[in-house]
């Protein structure tokens, strides 16, 4: 699916340069369910942003779907995020003014899919996460777990090759978190979606097929 080779990422904060990633290597195959485990500040979110084409590494080589990810224009990056990647965030990141269905269909809107087709596909993925009866609700009217289901549906809606989940259960209680995790497991098992889950919770990482541990900007254990 994708390969990272000696990825470095540094930010300039005032006069100081802070290196967040200090040479990350990683190889993720199609159909994997991988957990990236690490305490906060270890650079796992930065790594996810790089994998998700939201951010570029300072140095290193990133190959996605067999193609190097360097020198892409902003529109190409947007296109890859739109078609190949589905994001699930800790804070759900749904647009509060849109209904559940409209939120789910957002990736298709930017792909130029006609409204009717969008809604049809949106309902399809909403039923996959058991949220079809809430399609007209706005995020504010949904519980945290329900919002995260909608967010997963949005990530699925564009049929991406990779789903990136950044602390997807971090804002949820354990029971709800487990339900969300079940959804990821079944998506991976039944539909073969490649999923990378970023978490600080070892209990969650154990449920994934594979996990890597990050510490201080490096992968320390496969």
């Amino acid at each position, binding site marked *: 699916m994708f390969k990272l080779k000696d990825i470095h990422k540094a930010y300039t904060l005032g006069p100081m340069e802070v290196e967040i990633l200090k040479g990350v290597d990683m190889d993720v195959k199609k159909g994997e369910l991988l957990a990236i485990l690490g305490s906060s500040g270890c650079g796992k979110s930065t790594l996810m*942003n790089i994998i*998700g084409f*939201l951010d570029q590494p300072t140095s290193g080589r990133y190959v996605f779907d067999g193609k190097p990810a360097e020198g892409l224009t902003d529109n190409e990056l*947007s*296109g890859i995020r739109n078609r190949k990647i589905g994001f699930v*965030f800790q804070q759900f990141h749904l647009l509060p003014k849109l209904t559940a269905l409209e939120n789910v269909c957002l*990736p298709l809107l930017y792909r*130029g899919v006609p409204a009717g087709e969008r809604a049809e596909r949106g309902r399809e993925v909403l039923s996959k996460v058991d949220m079809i009866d809430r399609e007209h609700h706005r995020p504010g009217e949904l519980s945290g777990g329900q919002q995260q289901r909608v967010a997963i549906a*949005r990530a699925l809606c564009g049929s991406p090759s990779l789903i990136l989940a950044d602390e997807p259960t971090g804002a949820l209680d354990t029971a709800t978190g487990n339900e969300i995790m079940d959804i990821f497991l079944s998506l991976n098992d039944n539909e073969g979606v490649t999923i990378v889950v970023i978490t600080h919770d070892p209990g969650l990482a154990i449920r994934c097929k594979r996990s890597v541990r990050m510490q201080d900007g490096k992968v320390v254990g496969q």
Partner: protein
Amino acid sequence: MILGENVRESIRSLWGAKQRSLLALIGIVIGIGSVIAMVTVGQIVENEAIRQFKEMGTDICIVRLSGITSGQKQNKSLNLDDIMAVPEHCSTIRVVAPYVSTYSTLTFAGVRKSCPALGVTEEFRNMFKVPLVAGRFISDLDRHANFCVLGSSKAEWLAEQGVNEPVGEKIVFGERMYTVIGVARAVPSGTFSPYEINEGIMLPISTVLRSPERPALSVFGARMIGHGVSVHASEQLQNYFNYTSKQKTRITSAEELVAQMDRQMRMFTLLLGAIGSISLIVGGVGVMNVMLVSVSERRGEIGIRRAVGAEQNDIQLQFLVESVILSFVGGIIGLGVGIGATAIICHFSGWEFFVSKIAAILGVGVSAAVGVFFGYYPARQAARMSPIDALRSA
């Protein structure tokens, strides 16, 4: 399709920030409203100024005669027959209406009032479009007769003396007694019509020329055979009067005056429009301000949209659509406000009210343009935001 979606979302988001949208709207409403009002008032004033010419016809001109250059003695004075013979000798002139003014005291029932008078021919009424309230106008058959037609202000004066139906009454002007045969209605005063039509009385020209004051003939109105012949007419008249009485002619045609007035009025309208535009710019800055606040408030939303694959152009379009809608709605309301203000101005100044199509189209078009112009910078800022930074503030 994405545009339709943008329009829907923009309305939703503007509605969501009602107070802020309303404030920006007020700026645009005042801006567009003042442009519309200013330009429309300019056009109405222009229309008002030109209206009297339009009524008289733009094929008329005023010819003024003066003695030839000093040193040479004026051996032959101008006489009425020379003027009346103008249409026969000048092919460009259809009819003439000579007039001569004089001044004396009007006496009625022992009350005296100073009063100008105009000696006119029958044609005068037609040329300067003098409407009558009562009686008849001076006729060419009234040669040397002591008849007069009252101007509107003198008719009012007589009414103050208790005479409500002046036709048939006798008044004294100067040393002679005149019979009132008609009353004229007020005409719009302007550069062309002699002011005596409203302010004085009108007498047969032959009567005035024979009066002891012996006023000199020096001016006449003429109607030309059509438009665009004033230069030719001027030459013919100069030649004719050079031959008959060694007089110099100065011709003022309504056509030229109207053209000149048009130019001046256009400048005037432009000036008013420019003044209005300043408030429009202020309104536009208000829109820009609101959009900038909106962009910085919605960084998170921008980040989310970018994460799911929105291109910079999509984000830019979204915010641009929002500012255009804001300005456009302001423009429509401003149009109403501007027209309303113009109607009120016209009501109180007695001008003829009309809605200028150009101002309306201009106002609505300009408001959309203001939206694009002042919305571009905030929209660009939204689009240029780094997705990762934007997402972090979500």
